[in-house]
């Protein structure tokens, strides 16, 4: 039994659960109680079923990941836990910019990241981008130049290839 030093890694897991009250509370309480990380979490019902799909972006070494999966499995309403290996993952972000900023630059930036301007108000415009989490991060960094006043990230959703 060698003592290996294990590195923390970012992982995305999908949890398929029965659609019942307090199931989300069970999951978040499990993470909080056992000291696991939640970087992001999304949840929505699976169409035409009694199940919901929860996507959790987390961090931990291999041992912690194994425990997370097993502990999730132990919860009675949890049907399936998928530790994603080969996945397509996407995230959405909404960003509010002052209308005084250079709108055509912002529009061009959004297009480069598969997005666009979705709302124009009196004082603000709102841009939306949906892309891989890494690229969302890049988009947010690039957007800093235009003085964003609010950024709302949606959290990761993933599907195994």
């Amino acid at each position, binding site marked *: *039994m060698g003592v290996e030093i294990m590195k923390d890694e970012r992982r995305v897991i999908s949890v398929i659960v*029965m659609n019942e*009250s307090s199931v989300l509370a069970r999951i978040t309480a499990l993470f909080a109680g056992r000291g696991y990380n939640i970087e992001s979490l999304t949840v929505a019902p699976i169409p035409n079923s009694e199940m919901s799909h929860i996507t959790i972006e987390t961090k931990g070494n291999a041992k912690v990941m194994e425990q997370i999966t097993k502990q999730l*499995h*132990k919860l*009675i309403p949890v049907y399936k836990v998928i530790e994603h290996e080969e996945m397509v993952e996407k995230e959405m972000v909404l960003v509010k910019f002052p209308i005084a900023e250079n709108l055509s630059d912002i529009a061009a930036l959004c297009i480069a990241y598969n997005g666009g301007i979705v709302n124009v108000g009196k004082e603000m415009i709102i841009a939306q981008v949906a892309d891989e989490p890494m690229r969302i991060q890049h988009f947010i960094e690039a957007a800093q130049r235009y003085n964003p006043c609010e950024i709302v990230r949606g959290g990761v959703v993933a599907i195994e290839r």
Partner: protein
Amino acid sequence: MQMSGAQMVCEAIIAEGVKTVFGYPGGAIMHVYDEIYKQNGFEHILNRHEQAAVHAADGYARATGEVGVAMVTSGPGFTNAVTGLATAYMDSIPLVVISGQVPLSLIGTDGFQEIDAVGISRPCTKHNFLVRTLEELPRILKEAFYIARSGRPGPVLVDIPKDITVGIGNFVYPDTVNIPTYKPTYKGNKKQIEKAVEAIKKAKKPLIYVGGGAVLSNASELVRQLAQKTQIPTVETLMARGVMGAKNPLLLGMLGMHGNYASNMAMSETDLIIALGARFDDRVTGKLSEFARYADIIHVDIDPANIAKLVDVDYPIVGDVYDVLENMIPLLENVNTDRYQAWREILKRYDALHPQSYVDSDEVLKPQWVIERVGELVGENAIITSDVGQHQMWAAQHYPFDRPRQWINSGGLGTMGFGFPAAIGAKRAFPEKTVINITGDGSILMNMQELVTAAEYKIPVINLILNNHFLGMVRQWQTFFYEKRYSQTDLTFQPNWKALAEACGGIGYDVETKEEFDAALKDAIRQDKVCFMNIAINRFENVLPMVPAGGALFNMMLPQSEEK
């Protein structure tokens, strides 16, 4: 059949074959209590505190292997029950606890005696339910019992809003349960079992490490067979005392923080651990990086999350200990038992070098003597419960446990106040057996109101108070690790134990000598009354051996090192 939700609760309890329910009424659960009044399918014991009611149901469950049932009201009734739930949860004890809740319309309004019971109990139950409609009540009750007893057992809470207990609906108690998300694995993987068998045949110094899971799965007979057939030495955890039987020559003893020398050395030197329903708790392993450094590990456990949680496992087998051993033992038919002969000799020498021992005295009663004497006088006929502290460890070390479910204690949570109500539950389950709670002068006070319960229902539990006028276990740590600063552990101020017991309808004994002890115990066994036996023991006696917390298992403080 048309009936009220309250009636459904009673019908479900009867359908589950439960004979005794422990509980305490209050506003939100009153409709159910009204139905309890009208039925005679089960008896109800009115404990004098909800914590005690849950512990009593727990003791009942541990003694019988069946699901224990407790009932409490909302708010403070429920919060009082939480320690009971947590105690059962940590030791995987099957319970169904039914709590009243404020009516649905009041939930979320900070109503009188409203508390979020499912929220609070989530981390200390195997599962919990807040009933939202009358229609789902029968199914939830059925599932609660099923979840409590199946797989890795545990407590389940069913929180029922008051208006649901009043509503009238159709009652059909389901015959079967279908929870698509919950399918425990009982049978171990055949290939894995075969690999494990090969490892056993190749090992030179194998060691069977039995935990409470072997008790829960009623696998004691098979564990004994495994050891017998292979002649592999065996160690038990605190929760597994009785699985092998004290007289079994293959049993080395208990391992861990207060384990005996041979057991801890065996664990430190073995080359193959065969873990059966044990979970490598920190009180067992000591310092993890020093734990069993030379060993490969076979780990049989019904809970996959227990496997490879703390130590890396070479042969994981997810399954019930009973089912796995049933498949494993026949494969060991022609194992060469001579192979382990040298190993057994080494361990015999270790045991001879530092046997589990103590220095007896003529001046003052030694707690170890008291426990061994109880063993001589009542032995296998008794059920022993305990509280938490030195007395618990002495009992675990020195009592000659002969069979599983004979030893009932709070191992995982370490709940002071557990022993007396648990003894009440065990005695109710086995009225013909002598039931003895080995307790301390600190612990017993934490549920002493149960004197009244035991007196009222004529449940003659014997409480042996090993009285050191200290919170002894904490005092021992202060002696060893805090330079004898006895901060808040001196219990010199004491109640009059005899008078206390008598005031509540029991009897009391004060004991200072061996002769007095013998006489008192014999008398207590003849009585049909609950008793407190105040036994003055050596104040500064320590529990040894001891592995200091965080230390390596092989670095034990031994009785000799203390005297120096």
